[in-house]
């Protein structure tokens, strides 16, 4: 899921300096699991906003604010509280903020969180990045450990000279990705994978901005209104 961290309230207050009436949107997927945009966080945010002298017109947890059309319908159903608000604070990743911002171009739609990475849950509140959606998965060759993501330099051909007693140059708390890969492949009896010379990464596989039109859904390809990039 997308790992998010709530912005300091001082920053949010500054974003809302010209606004009086605020509506809050949470996220029923990642931000709820991260405890940054679920029902509890919406209630806390509402309280802090009221304490800061703002009028909170309402708030709800959207199913998934990254779903542009679905969220637009959900927001419309909220009715007057959304209409009367001059600002919307979105407690989700940037994708959620993006969809709501394009639905309400006349309102001050602001992010309540910073988006950190695509993360694996270690336990609630503790997340690691294992995949950075690079566009070309090589995990078969590296024993399921991604060097693009978990090596600080994203190296494809083995550890750098900064590896120290199996740890990464940037921190003694981080395992060297390539030492982990070596040990994993050794267990699998696949150390020959370490001999492969990996060519320079093809960064064109990761388009910027990312766009994907699945073949399977070709019939639905006509992009709905509000679905512009």
């Amino acid at each position, binding site marked *: 899921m997308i790992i998010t961290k709530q912005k300091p309230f001082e920053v949010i207050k500054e974003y809302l300096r010209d606004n009086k009436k605020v509506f809050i949107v949470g996220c029923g997927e990642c931000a709820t699991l991260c405890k940054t945009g679920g029902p509890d966080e919406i209630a806390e945010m509402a309280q802090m906003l009221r304490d800061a002298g703002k009028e909170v017109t309402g708030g709800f947890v959207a199913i998934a604010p990254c779903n542009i059309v679905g969220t637009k319908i959900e927001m419309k159903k909220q009715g007057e509280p959304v209409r009367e608000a001059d600002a919307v604070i979105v407690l989700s990743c940037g994708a959620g903020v993006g969809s709501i911002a394009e639905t309400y171009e006349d309102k001050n739609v602001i992010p309540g969180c910073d988006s950190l990475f695509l993360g694996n849950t270690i336990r609630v509140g503790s997340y690691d990045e294992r995949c950075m959606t690079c566009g070309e998965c090589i995990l078969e060759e590296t024993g399921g450990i991604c060097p693009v993501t978990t090596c600080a*330099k994203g*190296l494809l*051909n083995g550890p*750098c000279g*900064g590896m120290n007693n199996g740890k990464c*140059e940037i921190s003694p708390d981080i395992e060297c990705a390539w030492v982990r890969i*070596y040990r994993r492949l050794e267990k699998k009896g696949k150390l020959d994978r370490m*001999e492969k*010379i990996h060519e320079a990464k093809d960064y064109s596989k990761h388009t910027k901005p990312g766009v994907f039109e699945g073949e399977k859904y070709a019939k639905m390809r006509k992009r709905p209104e509000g679905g512009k990039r």
Partner: protein
Amino acid sequence: MKRFKEALEAGDFVITAECGPPKGTDISELKEHAKHLLGKVHALNVTDNQSSVMRAGSLSISKVLLDMGHDPIYQLTCRDRNRLAIQSDLLSAHILGIKNVLCLTGDSISVGDHKEAKAVFDLESVQLLKLVDTMNNGKDMAGNDLKGATGLFAGAVVTPEANPVEPQLMKFSKKVRVGAKFFQTQAIYDIEKFKTFMEYSRRFDTKILAGILLLRSAGMANFLNANVPGITVPQHLIDELKAAGKEKALDCGMDIAARQIKELKGICDGVHVMAIGLEDKVPEILKRAGI
């Protein structure tokens, strides 16, 4: 004195040293140090924003050394430039008359003095070595013909005292396979471990220059042990530096370096002396080593 590549190919015991470009435009001290080394070393490495600390460029300083009569080893890292910039710089190096290039991945941005910078690492050391070979054969990375190929002699680095060493050795073998003609190692203090590494490396057609790092105090040795990956200064050397006292510690360090060079002479193809700002001491170290 033979040029670096000729000396290596002739099987001579090759001596290299290194100098770090200044942070700023004043190169008078660098030139003064380099002057002391003329005729004493086969080649002089020029570090590339080493430890991720911004300095004058290794390409321009390599040219300065070349004009002084040195044979520079142009160090090129992948940290600060993408494949377009790297290829462009390799062409520039050839055009300027620079013959040797040491292909490095580069330290992490986070250890340096511009921690907010974006790390590039579009390529890394193995891919960079392969790229030099490609350009020496008249092509760029995209497969286009070059109007004039490069003629660069490519080298790399290895850490024989890395722990664990196996992944490091596998990377070493990859580097040889893609065209590393010589290696300059991280500082060597454990001769027995180094001999084991040399036995392994002799299976490959490449030259090995052992790294010698000038110790100037017991404090410095302790710092290296705590902070620099792949360097382990043994306790008996730290004791020796301590016993020499503050005044004589550097002199003692020079003795240690000279002794190491003597010991390594029959074992590998040369030494790379890193004096880190005390390049003017290198001639004396070499003299004590009988070179």
